[in-house]
């Protein structure tokens, strides 16, 4: 079980409350698809992903970004047992979606960059460290059911 200090729980929950899930999810997913274009391999049914503008304007990208952030909310609600919370999601990504877990890391890094863009200096090094720890826990949980 992961140990969270009060300060860490506070940093995670406070920032989570300030985030527009749809907007941040959209920006993070858009960036992943633009900055690491090979990730588009998982979204062949999404229609036009031919350039940055198309990706940013794609309604399926927006919808999926929101879905990802909502799922992150589940992890935050269950900070003391992210592994169990994500067991089915992990299985889904491994057995049905066949997603290389490296992509979880790419999305995690990108989300940190999006949060920094939104919050500027308020996204201090310590808060960044907390969020990186949280996302590392999320990534481990999502990778756990890969056999």
């Amino acid at each position, binding site marked *: 079980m992961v140990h969270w200090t009060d300060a860490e729980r506070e940093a995670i929950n406070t920032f989570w409350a300030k985030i527009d899930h749809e907007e941040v999810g959209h920006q993070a997913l*858009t*960036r992943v698809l*633009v*900055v690491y274009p090979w990730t588009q391999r998982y979204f062949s049914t999404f229609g036009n992903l031919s350039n*940055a503008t198309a*990706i*940013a304007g794609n309604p399926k990208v927006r919808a999926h970004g929101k879905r990802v952030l909502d799922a992150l909310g589940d992890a935050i609600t269950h900070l003391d047992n992210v592994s169990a919370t994500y067991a089915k999601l992990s299985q889904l990504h491994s057995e049905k979606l066949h997603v290389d877990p490296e992509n979880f890391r790419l999305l995690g*890094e990108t989300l*940190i*960059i*999006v949060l*920094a*863009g*939104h*919050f*500027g*200096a308020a*996204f201090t*090094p*310590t808060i*960044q*460290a907390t969020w*990186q720890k949280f996302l590392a826990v999320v990534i481990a949980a999502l990778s756990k059911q890969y056999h």
Partner: protein
Amino acid sequence: MSSLSCAERDIVFGDGHCFIHLEHKRQSPKTMSLSAHDKELIVKVWTKISPKAAQIGGDALGRLIVVFPQTKIYFSHFADLSPSSPQIKAHGAKVLGAIGEAVSGIDNVSASLSKLSELHAYNLRVDPVNFKLLAHTLLVSLSATLGAEFTPEIHLAWDKFLAIIAAVLSEKYR
């Protein structure tokens, strides 16, 4: 798949089959290449941030040490390793100065950073994994500084550029 018609492609065979004559990017064998557009975006951002380069460098290095505490081992000679430390700020400024050199010599980063590459290979011997970690915190600092102006396309160009710098710094290690 491209939707160009045969008439738009530039090589057509007599029987109506055709293909696109692809521009082969001249890739350096070791590193990916920057497109003209990438270079434009890199230079544009550099021009904008260069008055604050020292501050951004200090911020990025401060973040590196807090977020990835294992990187402290390279700074055991610094008295203060907090983000506000004058030594951290000075060193961060130095790092951004080197990035500025790479921007000035963007058409040949390997040549621009040749001395620095030797320094890292023979003296500093920083494990190359750390270049990725610092690239990440540099992107975080750029994003925090530029906000919405740090667009996905600019993020892409700078991600590639920092990866190229990392590759150049590691190229003489063995």
